[in-house]
């Protein structure tokens, strides 16, 4: 069953700015995944693809390890937006899902910067939930998402 395993936003120093998990991981596994993603993503440059296959730590129950996850990532200034999906998932669809998400954040926070994500972490979770739910793409229309976000903001 293919779906998003987690979404991570990290800065270049490896600080996590958002982590949304769509699968059961224990705290150690989460930490290991966060470090692993940071290690594999930050060494890559423009000549590399936006996709990295990783050996899962969560699946280490079997002594044999299979390549079953991949990270699809995109870098915006000092931030890496990473989505972890099944190896069979559509790379470009998730690559553009990241961009769609970033455009919504940019619109919502009026030129989003790293600090916006830190200050307004609870709003960022709301944006994520509007666009991705249960590891699936929920809504792709920027207009619809922003309309909903503004409606919720008016309730504050």
């Amino acid at each position, binding site marked *: 069953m293919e779906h998003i395993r987690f979404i991570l936003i990290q800065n270049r120093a490896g600080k996590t700015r958002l982590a949304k998990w769509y699968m059961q991981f224990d705290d150690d596994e989460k930490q290991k995944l966060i470090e692993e993603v940071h290690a594999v993503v930050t060494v890559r440059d423009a000549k590399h693809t936006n996709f990295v296959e990783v050996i899962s730590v969560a699946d280490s129950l079997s002594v044999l390890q299979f390549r079953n996850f991949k990270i699809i990532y995109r870098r915006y200034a000092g931030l890496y937006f990473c989505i972890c999906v099944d190896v069979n998932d559509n790379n470009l669809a998730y690559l553009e899902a990241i961009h769609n998400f970033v455009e919504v954040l940019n619109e919502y926070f009026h030129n989003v910067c790293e600090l916006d994500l830190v200050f307004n972490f609870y709003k960022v979770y709301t944006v994520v939930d509007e666009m991705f739910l*249960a590891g699936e793409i929920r809504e792709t229309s920027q207009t619809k998402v922003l309309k909903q976000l503004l409606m919720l903001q008016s309730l504050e």
Partner: protein
Amino acid sequence: MRSCVLSVFLFHRGEGFSGLFLLAVASVTLNYVKEAEIKRINKELANIRSKFKGDKALDGYSKKKYVCKLLFIFLLGHDIDFGHMEAVNLLSSNRYTEKQIGYLFISVLVNSNSELIRLINNAIKNDLASRNPTFMGLALHCIASVGSREMAEAFAGEIPKVLVAGDTMDSVKQSAALCLLRLYRTSPDLVPMGDWTSRVVHLLNDQHLGVVTAATSLITTLAQKNPEEFKTSVSLAVSRLSRIVTSASTDLQDYTYYFVPAPWLSVKLLRLLQCYPPPEDPAVRGRLTECLETILNKAQEPPKSKKVQHSNAKNAVLFEAISLIIHHDSEPNLLVRACNQLGQFLQHRETNLRYLALESMCTLASSEFSHEAVKTHIETVINALKTERDVSVRQRAVDLLYAMCDRSNAPQIVAEMLSYLETADYSIREEIVLKVAILAEKYAVDYTWYVDTILNLIRIAGDYVSEEVWYRVIQIVINRDDVQGYAAKTVFEALQAPACHENLVKVGGYILGEFGNLIAGDPRSSPLIQFNLLHSKFHLCSVPTRALLLSTYIKFVNLFPEVKPTIQDVLRSDSQLRNADVELQQRAVEYLRLSTVASTDILATVLEEMPPFPERESSILAKLKKKKGPSTVTDLEDTKRERSVDVNGGPEPAPASTSAMSTPSPSADLLGLGAAPPAPAGPPPSSGGGGLLVDVFSDSASVVAPLAPGSEDNFARFVCKNNGGGLLFFNREMMCVKKWFLFLLGRMFIFYGNKTSTQFLNFTPTLICSDELQPNILGFITKPVDPTVEGGAQVQQVVNIECVSDFTEAPVLNIQFRYGGTFQNVSVQLPITLNKFFQPTEMASQDFFQRWKQLSNPQQEVQNIFKAKHPMDTEVTKAKIIGFGSALLEEVDPNPANFVGAGIIHTKTTQIGCLLRLEPNLQAQMYRLTLRTSKEAVSQRLCELLSAQF
């Protein structure tokens, strides 16, 4: 690390928690700042705690503020052990912001505290019933994030109703669909199919594309498990897709992304269609074909925008369409068009597209319709191997070359892979070695080419040539007599190089030991020259290789009597006879003795040429599958078969475990050679103590017990002996010894010796397997022996052993014969224990404990505390653990006195990972042994066997 962030930050707004934020933003690792952060946070936590505990009831706003702060502190990476109750209280607030923070806290810090779960579920229930779409949304998002079984129990019945109710708002429908999907994933048994399913399918027709997007994900997942129930979704998905792809770029307004109409929905619909075979209804099928053609046509049109977003979105749909075309594998025209399109991408300036094209073409290569079309791109792919900067792209190029390889291009592809291997990244060398070895074997018309290729592999990347590979070349040479002379000549020449890889010495030693006689006629490779050449490498080699060379030497004694004195001199030297390594010493002693006392007949029998190996799946292919995961090894036959299962048998995913699957397809014949590699040990009949040979040739044996004397003791003796030989039992009349080579398939050589001067008549050995109906361990006698055994004669029999599943009772060898008018009946249990099927696994400390932790289920662990029966010597213990078959892992256990080991039990049906830990207590003269494996019976059995050894 960047303290400059601090200064930027000082000017930033903050509503009361700026101190905390300040520390959060500064990703500073300087210790004093770290300490300051912890201090500041502890102060803040104390403050919040006192607020929560205070007499004054907090108003909703303050409660929200503090819960939010706690959440923030948690997200900074600090533990939070309070505030859950306050968060739950927020759920019942009527203010959106308070409710939202409450739900967020619950979603992020899931707590399985049952009392709270009840309260949380209650709040969710109220919100679901509130008819307030905002609150319903929050509640659904919380369920979708937590997705616990308790929640499934509480809401799996309710959510389908929300989903299909006529008056539900669109945004709530979207959330409900995905919420249900999450519950179905975690607890499918709690989501019964029902009337709602047909209404869910009709959501594919919904006006709101967001609802369709969410519903498509739900339907895809449900259809994978219940294909019949959701069959009607095919035609609906096709017509929806058709409307999208034929729409003008402005028709879909909000859902058009950089001029591409609803790209994500299109991808999802195409994935849904991959759950099913091509539509049977010709109209639907025609419409789908049109859609796919339109998508392929659009790829050829000039782009509507230069932005990468446009091309990515468009190509996301294109790649998914190609996946569907490959999945259907029924329209040659579409398959070839897909291949041409991917061919263009192979030279695209975007690395992403080149990567994806290589990946996608790999699956196209396995379709009979497009295999030829894929092959036309060979030069581009080879070029990618040489020029791509990203190793993962080169890796895909290797995969594709492997997939497109057939008899026509094998020499070129193998040559290119070999030349790439010289500069390849270390991370992928082993895999390339395996691939080259498989292709060379599979497409060898001329086995001299195969031998050359493997020797080249060893020359170029000897360190990456695993045992499987060099075992395999030996198996093939042994099984094909047309190549034996050439192999002997070639290894002889290769060994002339002043510095050659140890693996070459192994192969060379083995092959010359078996077939050196085939080139001995040439004075340039006379027996003495062969021996001197091998022996010149001896001192540079590791112990296992030296052991193998000693076996070669004793084989030379049989093949070339003229070098016997030279070899005996070597064996007799102190560096052999008194070697510190027990194995080497023992071999030297026994071989020397054998060469001295045995007659030429006996030598010829004992040192006979290896018999051919049974035909089985290639151990190399099994290894590659193991390495890459079954789905990524593209084998034409395998893929075809899996795919046809897929189409006929519904959308069940392709079989996951193929490592145990044999490949009975015609072209895999050669791959299917025995999976049993010869053990490095040569074939002498004894390493179980020099006494054996004395038994054979002297009359001093005085044991009289007629039936299986001391069988049990013997049994225990063999447990920790790795592939050695030894005496099974003997009595005055007869003896029987065994010798085996074990890995996945065991082979035991049994020698029966008639020690009397009288004939044995009606001599019939039979094998009895423990459970005749469903044996877990099988033994096969390959060929019956002559019923008459002359006095003083020795006969040999080969028994093949196959481990089907874990077992405790070994097969019993029953021997009946008539001797001097009396009927003799002897039974002996073959010393085959489960650990004989061990393959050692090396791993680092971290991995070991990770796996150890994973096997923490009480049924997986078996522990035994017992008194030492033998002196507690560290080196002996180590040797026993290694002899038991597991890897001995050094520097893993924090206590250096303890021993830990790891290995995999290979059985025909499964592979079982095993971890073990032995803790000696010298003072008490006790051991504690702990076994953890994924199977209780295995843990139990291994623990019993190993405990008895100390």
